């Protein structure tokens, strides 16, 4: 099977809002606030994957990546939220 093109897809894994995120809290408290950037009210850290995917269309690439993410548990639905972005 051959695919029409290559598409870039971004995957963002972050902790669900109701869970504390010590990394984000530390970045805000010990870096941003110390340097005076006190208008930043919240920082949430996460993991970002940048994928290059063979697919027929950008929509198909996104579907493929979404399926992969849940099958391989790239994110853990117990604690994470997942965002899959079409980057072109």
């Amino acid at each position: 099977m051959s695919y029409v093109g290559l598409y870039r897809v971004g995957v963002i894994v972050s902790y669900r809002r109701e869970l504390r995120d010590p990394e984000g809290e530390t970045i805000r408290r010990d870096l941003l606030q110390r340097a005076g950037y006190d208008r930043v009210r919240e920082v949430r850290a996460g993991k970002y994957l940048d994928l290059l995917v063979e697919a027929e269309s950008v929509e198909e690439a996104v579907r493929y990546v979404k399926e992969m993410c849940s099958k391989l548990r790239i994110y853990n639905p117990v604690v994470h939220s997942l965002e899959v972005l079409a980057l072109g």
Partner: protein
Amino acid sequence: MVRVAVVKFPGTNCDEDVVRAFRELELDVEAKVVWYKDFRSAKWDAVVIPGGFSYGDWLRAGAIAARTKVLDEVREGVSRGLPVLGICNGFQVLVEAELLPGALLPNESGMFTCRWVRTVVERPRGPWLSLVPDRSRLDMPVAHAEGRYYVDEVTYSEISLKCPHLRYERGWNPNGSTYDIAGVGSENGSVLGLMPHPERAVGVLTPRGFNPGGELILRSIALSLRKGW
């Protein structure tokens, strides 16, 4: 002699400690380190997934090891009642493989935490806790960055009513775990995962003021494998 496989992934580093602990207690158990690619569940009477940093904790602690074929073998063994113990990173692997409920998040302190803690065992059941009386105190060291156990309320009430589990004694929670949970077992107790290290809580390694909490767990599995549970 009963045989216990200690499965080693790339990045596992507590495998030899587990083997040494069995040897030091003279338990009549043949514990052997098995490289993950060579592991076949049918050859063993029990499995330990030891601590360390499988796959460098990349993606998430335990996430990559949980998707290897070893875990298919382990899952097949579990369906036959094969006893499985996950220690620290091994617990993270079992949770990521969905053999145990919940998830293990980065410690609330944001730091790697390495110290002795007191735990209390509740609803002990199954091969790993057969010698452990209900509500007894087991002291062991923890050493982890991602040990904050998380479950939703519904799953938690199921665990607390039905499953063997360990809690950090009040004031000893090192990571912000919900409900102070240090370890969780399957309903029949044949699968058990915990963040503290039983293999480091044996004999002379135990500091003053603590009990060697790992000994009862290792003695339990040795006896269970010979006499049933």
